[in-house]
């Protein structure tokens, strides 16, 4: 961290005693937030803690009921985003605010007073690309937004702010939508901008990332500040988490040992096509037992979604799917549900819930036709509300009432709502796809605990996740998918992140190099050595090419000293990316989290 605080400097942003109340929620409760030029200031908190609200106050979207804002020592009062822009404040929203069918330059020019009338895009294209060069951002100003990747779109958002001469940037969970290498590039860009004197507020709930990026830290919990302007190196992952959540967070879940019972689910020779009518599942055989969690690992798009959809009856297939002795293949979802199937879909808003309906309506969606909610042809809404109210308390869903629309819930609470509906039907089989993606630590913990409790009660759980740590921590067995095949299944005693990583790139278990087990990575959930995975891949494939650092390929028996690796978030992460092979890129995407952790250690 190059930043040094100069106590006599004027803060770029000084927010004092900000209070903002929405109907039913106290979003910000006397919040203070101070930020100096040249610093990256992390704003940490769970979903719904009030981070985005606070920043929307700073950008003039919301007007606080009380409190004071000073920008560079001058007291200001914003009535619209335009006022905030005029004071040099810009925000990159989590959901990009871009016009899809306009060019990069056009998007940047929206809302500005110059050009007066005629656009003269050529001249402004040049200005935009000059500005981009100044901050080391690569972008084609004439490209239409829909032609750009998510990472590139984010760069447009940043340029939009820079073009307006902003010296205070607010990034709302900027890495949530990015692939690992894109995130690295972003972090390098942000550091470069901070070095040029910009003050950057970095909203996040990812602890590892915050430690990597930020100089200072403010933590919010339920609308209140629990840590103000702290130095980051004073904190550990655990202490940060407890500041956010307000209690100790258990990162290492306790999973009791239990023997699997009889078979609940069996897939025999199941094949299916994807939406483009190409084979997505190829002759899949799987078995799942009572009290067992079967993890499905794999790079996204290797048939996991299709697997979930054929089991839940949402996609036609060939072959047999036996649930509790009944063939549910190609049966309507209602039949599988009656056989004890619960589905926690990947898309919480589109598939998992009806966003415009109330909590109650969402809760009764699977049992509106059963007693006591159904009376012949009528619905008993009193009984429904009672049921929903009970589940709301039991699953600790934070919402003003059971009549609240589901879309008003934060991600974690929406997921709890879905879990409440699915788990309260005492399922025999739970199919969960990415159940913790995008959730904050507190919510992740409770979702995982809920799944483990179901396991103890003898439920069979199929868990599809791209988070290897989660799979290693929760699963009894892990099946690895590659291009629609189940490449192999590993039991928890043999869990090995290296082996799984290799299988995710299509290597069959019997073909794995014999050295691998000897270099077994540490216990699940803890630091894992990503570099060794990469080297095994190289060794195994006998790729004779330079390693990322430009050094010869290292023989797996030799441990690589960490110092020889180029440091993460250093000066040229993109140049380093260029040297990666396709396979490495894949592995890196999968194991990115582990890679970062390994580096920090």
């Amino acid at each position, binding site marked *: 961290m190059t930043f040094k605080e100069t106590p006599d400097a004027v803060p770029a942003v000084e927010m004092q005693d900000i209070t903002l109340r929405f109907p039913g929620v106290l979003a910000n409760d006397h919040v203070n937030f101070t930020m100096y030029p040249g610093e990256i200031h992390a704003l940490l908190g769970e979903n719904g803690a009030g981070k985005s609200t606070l920043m929307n106050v700073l950008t003039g*979207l*919301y007007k606080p009921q009380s409190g004071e804002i000073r920008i560079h020592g001058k007291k200001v009062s914003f009535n*619209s985003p335009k006022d905030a822009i005029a004071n040099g404040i810009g925000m990159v929203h989590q959901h990009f605010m871009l016009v899809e069918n306009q060019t990069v330059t056009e998007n940047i*020019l929206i809302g500005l007073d110059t050009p007066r009338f005629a*656009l003269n895009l050529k001249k402004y294209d040049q200005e935009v690309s000059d500005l981009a060069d100044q901050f080391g951002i690569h972008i084609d100003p004439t490209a239409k937004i829909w032609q750009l990747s998510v990472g590139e779109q984010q760069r447009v958002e940043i340029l939009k702010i820079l073009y307006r001469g902003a010296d205070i940037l607010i990034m709302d969970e900027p890495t949530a939508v990015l692939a690992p290498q894109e995130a690295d590039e972003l972090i390098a860009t942000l550091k470069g901008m901070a070095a040029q004197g910009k003050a950057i507020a970095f909203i996040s709930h990812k602890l590892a990332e915050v430690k990597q990026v930020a100089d200072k830290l403010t933590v919010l919990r339920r609308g209140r500040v629990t840590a103000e302007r702290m130095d980051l190196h004073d904190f550990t992952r655990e202490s940060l988490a407890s500041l956010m959540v307000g209690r100790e967070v258990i990162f290492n879940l306790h999973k009791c040992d239990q023997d699997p019972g009889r078979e609940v689910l069996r897939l025999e020779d199941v094949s299916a096509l994807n939406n483009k009518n190409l084979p997505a599942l190829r002759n899949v055989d799987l078995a799942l037992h009572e009290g067992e969690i079967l993890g499905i690992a794999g790079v996204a798009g290797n048939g996991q979604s299709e697997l979930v959809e054929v089991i839940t009856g949402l996609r036609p297939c060939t072959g047999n799917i036996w649930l509790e002795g009944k063939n549910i293949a190609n049966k309507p979802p209602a039949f599988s549900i009656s056989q004890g199937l619960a589905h926690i879909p990947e898309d919480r808003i589109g598939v998992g819930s009806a966003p415009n309906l109330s909590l109650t309506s969402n809760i009764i969606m699977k049992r509106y036709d059963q007693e006591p909610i159904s009376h012949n042809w009528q619905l008993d809404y009193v009984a429904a509300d009672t049921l929903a109210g009970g589940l709301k308390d039991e699953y600790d869903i934070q919402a003003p009432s059971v009549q609240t629309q589901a879309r008003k819930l934060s991600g974690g609470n929406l997921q709890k709502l879905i879990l409440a509906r699915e788990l309260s039907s005492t399922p025999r089989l739970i199919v969960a796809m990415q159940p913790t993606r995008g959730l904050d630590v507190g919510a992740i913990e409770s979702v995982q605990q809920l799944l483990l409790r179901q396991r103890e009660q003898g439920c069979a759980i199929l868990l599809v996740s791209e988070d290897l740590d989660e799979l290693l921590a929760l699963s009894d067995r892990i099946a690895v998918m590659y291009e629609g095949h189940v490449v192999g299944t590993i039991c928890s005693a043999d869990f090995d992140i290296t082996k799984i990583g290799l299988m995710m790139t299509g290597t069959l278990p019997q073909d794995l190099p014999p050295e691998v087990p000897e270099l077994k990575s540490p216990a699940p959930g803890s630091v894992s050595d990503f570099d060794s995975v990469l080297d095994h891949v190289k060794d195994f494939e006998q790729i004779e090419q330079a390693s990322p650092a430009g050094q010869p390929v290292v023989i797996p028996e030799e441990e690589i000293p960490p110092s020889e690796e180029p440091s993460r978030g250093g000066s040229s992460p993109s140049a380093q990316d260029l040297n990666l092979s396709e396979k490495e890129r894949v592995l890196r995407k999968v194991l990115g989290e582990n890679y970062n952790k390994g580096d920090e250690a």
Partner: protein
Amino acid sequence: MNWIEIFRSGISTGTVLLIAAIGEILTERSGIQNLGVEGMMLVGAMAGFKVAFQTGNVWLGLLAAIAAGGLLSLAHALVVIHFQADQTVSGLSLTFLGTGLALVLGDGLTGQTAPVIPSATIPLLSQIPYLGPVAFANHNLLVYLGYLLMPLTWYYINKTRPGLHLRAVGENPAAADTLGVNIYRTRYLYTFIGGCFAGLAGAAISVAIAPGWYSNLTVNGQGWIAVALVIFAHWNPWRAALGGYLFGVLRRFTLDLQGPRLLFGLANPFFFNTNLVFFLQMAPYLLTIIALIWGSSAARRKRIGSPAALGVPYQRGERGL
């Protein structure tokens, strides 16, 4: 058959559609759909004719038509922008409202004659063989206005700052809002402008291209064709003009087909069988539908389509903003 006459008259009647469609394009580009074009045109036609008839000044009539269309559209704007009502319902009611108003206020005008906007021939351009007599000779002045509107509107939408804001508001109002563009003001403005254009289109019928007031037969469904044309044109003024003229030509052509006893040396079926004429009259509409279907699949490939926020009310501070 006189081909020059067919094209001449196609361009004339197409101008009405062109003006109304360009107005609706401007409105829809801001994210507001106004299905009341028919009603606004009728009110414009009535106001234009009535004022021209009573004052004897056709230019005052034209101004009255523009103002009447604009005023009526403000009712739609208020309901859908301010009160966030359903735009389809409000647009349909606007048609009924406009039709009713025009019939009541236009009572007694039928069969009267009022001054008409003059025609003109453009020197030099009218000398061009074929094109000259079709496009530049002895046309109503509003036809020439139509020629100017096409490139000007296209330039305004695509190459100017206010046009950029217009597109941004129609595509992603939340984005425009965070950048300080006033969404409500923009939408009011372009709904009003669209209404003005519809009023002008109405007057283009009653005091220019097909002069006279024949109650609701004056406009006779052309407002609806203009709305369909906007979709066919993918919200592009050039294509709207092309579609307008094409429709005009087709209509005149099917009319002329019914005239002669002999067609290409054979007995003309449309002359002898009145039932076939009904099918003939359908043809322009049918062809427009076919063009619409064909056009929309081509548009999907090129990613041009309806403004993304068309018909969606905007409210600041919704979750996710």
